[in-house]
């Protein structure tokens, strides 16, 4: 327990350090872009948070499959899926916000019906639906089954979001990092900064997911304790009723017995 706490702490410090280095590299070390100027600095964050959103949903779908598969069925997979989806929604929101801030000076609009923007917004809504489904009151195992099915269906949208700029030729540029030839079109200091950014935000994701997983575990344990306490209370009430009936029965039977003695 102590060692896991230590490693989670190490992860948190590494994530924080990584984000600080990304900040320093992105703002002070790398030069402005020839075409985009200072705006390029936003791109050290935007693709990284988008990648983390994909990763989070990938983990959610793996957790969902492992929960649905009867051999591996365990609530820990459901907790992992839930934790990852929550973090994924946060990072999808960040992707949309950073994209929108970049789009305003570049495309002169905060929002446009671009294929990737639209499909990313859909992804956001899909996983909001997933989280809403999790909040519908039901026994714990039923919540897990429902969520696993929803998580699996929702994940089909992830490759569509990534491929949308290829299928629909709209405003958003094609993939510069995760392209078909797997050869990033970014070089030098810019490439290094992006790499640090990708690693840092992945560490942030890992830390957030672990913490969220721990909270989910605590909630489940707390619920179980509450149920046990409620059962114990009912049992005490029943015991009390039985005892009081027994004692009143003894009192009612008293004279009879007394009579028989006399």
């Amino acid at each position, binding site marked *: 327990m102590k060692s896991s706490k230590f490693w989670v702490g190490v992860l948190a410090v590494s994530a924080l350090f990584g984000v600080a280095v990304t900040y320093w590299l992105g703002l002070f070390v790398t030069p402005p872009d020839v075409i985009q100027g200072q705006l390029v600095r936003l791109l050290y964050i935007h693709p990284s948070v988008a990648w983390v959103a994909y990763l989070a949903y990938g983990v959610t779908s793996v957790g969902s499959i492992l929960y649905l598969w009867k051999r591996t069925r365990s609530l820990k997979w459901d907790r992992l899926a839930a934790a990852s989806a929550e973090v994924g929604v946060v990072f999808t929101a960040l992707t949309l916000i950073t994209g929108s801030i970049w789009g305003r000076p570049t495309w002169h609009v905060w929002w446009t019906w671009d294929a990737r923007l639209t499909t990313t917004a*859909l992804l956001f809504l899909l996983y*909001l639906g997933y989280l809403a489904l999790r909040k519908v009151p039901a026994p714990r195992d039923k919540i897990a*089954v429902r969520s*696993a*099915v929803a998580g699996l269906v929702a994940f*089909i949208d992830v490759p569509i979001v990534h491929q949308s700029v290829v299928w629909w030729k709209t405003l958003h540029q094609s993939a510069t990092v995760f392209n078909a030839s797997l050869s990033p079109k970014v070089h030098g200091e810019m490439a290094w900064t992006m790499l640090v950014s990708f690693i840092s935000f992945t560490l942030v994701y890992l830390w957030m997911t672990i913490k969220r997983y721990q909270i989910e575990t605590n909630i489940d344990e707390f619920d179980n304790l509450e149920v046990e306490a409620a059962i114990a209370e009912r049992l005490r009430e029943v015991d009390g009723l039985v005892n009081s009936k027994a004692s009143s029965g003894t009192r009612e039977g008293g004279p009879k017995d007394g009579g028989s003695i006399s």
Partner: protein
Amino acid sequence: MIRDALEIAKKDLLIEARSRVLLNQLLPFVAVVLILFGFAVGTQNRTLVDISPGVFWVIAFLSALLAIQRSFSIEAENQAKDGLLAYGLEPGGIFLGKVVSIFFECIVVEVFLGLGVVFIYGMRLNSVALLIVSAGFATLGVASVGTLFGALAAATKVRETLLPLLVLPSTAPVLLAATKAWEDGITSRVGIGDPWLGLLVVFGLIYLAIGLVSFGSVLED
């Protein structure tokens, strides 16, 4: 499994034929929305014709939602779902049967809707084969996801609000692809080799496969 599916589809379609909810409620709903779109967009310009593929599919999807909700409200009454399981029907068969019945109900709505957009909006149909095949696969996609989520939402007390929240974002790529395929079908740019049709086929089959695999778990609910 196929026999179970046919039994379920027959049962649902028979209930539909006897209750006539489709005829008495769904088709009038479609007609009302078609006319409302006309009022909202205006009939004096070409806009209505230009947006008619999108309008067609939005109304088709909304109608599909009603058909899905109806299909599972039948099973919610008197714990009919438990009855299906007690009969020993295969979950895959139940899923497939539901998909088939919802598919046919949606196709009836889409034929009616198609006549509406042609005669009221003045939409011209050029590549009829593309329009029919793409409508078939888009409907298969919606019916598959709808059946899966319909069963899932039916077990909750918030089914009316939860179902659209789950189904509509999941099927939005189908809506996009179907609208694009219909735009191509209307302008006759391409025939049956339209890439959007390929996307619809992929979606339809993936959703069907996921439904077949996971419906057993959903029915546990």
